[in-house]
């Protein structure tokens, strides 16, 4: 049994390599994970130039999939500010 296993055993290093490559691609992409914070600040600044808005009402979210990343920006503009604009 053990001799059979010796010859049929699958190699584990390629799995390690592949798992690391996938994982690190993700981790590196989110390494500057302050990206969402930076985007949030800058988007807020741009919109605030034109309409008055509450800083807490701006949400920036980055979703990552294996093939695609989605940047979701959710800005809530108060009714009176929208009318004034």
């Amino acid at each position, binding site marked *: 049994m053990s001799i059979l296993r*010796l*010859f049929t*055993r699958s*190699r*584990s*290093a*390629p799995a*390690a*390599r592949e*798992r*690391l*490559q996938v*994982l*690190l691609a993700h*981790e*590196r992409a989110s*390494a500057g994970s302050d990206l969402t914070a930076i985007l949030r600040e800058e988007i807020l600044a741009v919109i605030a130039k034109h309409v008055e808005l509450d800083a807490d009402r701006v949400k920036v979210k980055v979703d990552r999939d294996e093939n695609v990343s989605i940047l979701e920006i959710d800005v809530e503009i108060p009714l009176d500010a929208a009318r004034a604009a």
Partner: protein
Amino acid sequence: MGKVIVVTSGKGGVGKTTSSAALGAALAQRNEKVAVVDFDVGLRNLDLVMGAERRVVYDIVNVINGDAKLPQALIRDKRLDTLFLLPASQTRDKDALTEEGVERVIAELKKYFDWVICDSPAGIEKGATLAMRHADVAVVVTNPEVSSVRDSDRIIGMLDSKTLKAENGERMEKHLLLTRYDSNRAERGDMLKVDDVLEILSIPLLGIVPESMDVLKASNVGAPVTLADTRSAPAQAYFEAARRLAGEAIPVTIPGEKRGIFGKLFGRKAA
């Protein structure tokens, strides 16, 4: 002005302290003045690995706090005149290290030594960031194993963003030191190969230190492996790495790659 090297890894237990001591002793044997600095405040071990644990009087925290002068805290190696150790404090924690204090100590060491080797603690907290802060060169110690490679990748990211060099827009020189490597297991496909790790981390290779009993033997007797048994495979690997650090362009080999009779019979395809 001396060169400041940080020996770092993120993950613990991969061989930072062993490598700091071995590289320090290897460089000192080239007649260059070397100071190895233990940044692992609270869990110091460089003194033990170098066999100086009973000679520690003052430590880096004492120097930072002004309780001792740098020359009082430096311990000269009994075997090598040009090798010195600045121990960490064992009774304090990492908050005892201050940014300005570390800067002062490193600046002073650079004046007197050709090499200042900073042995980083594991982790990515204050101790590790302070150890890498003033480095000119980084040696990233990595085992051919997934968690170590992942943590090294993280540390490489920090070297490129949290160091003075990076903040000044300069490029941090980084080298990979692959330790505990077993070429037989790598050939069998059960361990990441040198090329796998190089491709994933994409920093240049400083050396390959084979897995060896000699490393444990050296630490048992309190000697850097490059002093305990200069002809052993890991010592040879560290000597080569030291030569590369000093600027020599020599090809990287895997020292002590020997095959037993069984390995020879089955060649590279064994199992």
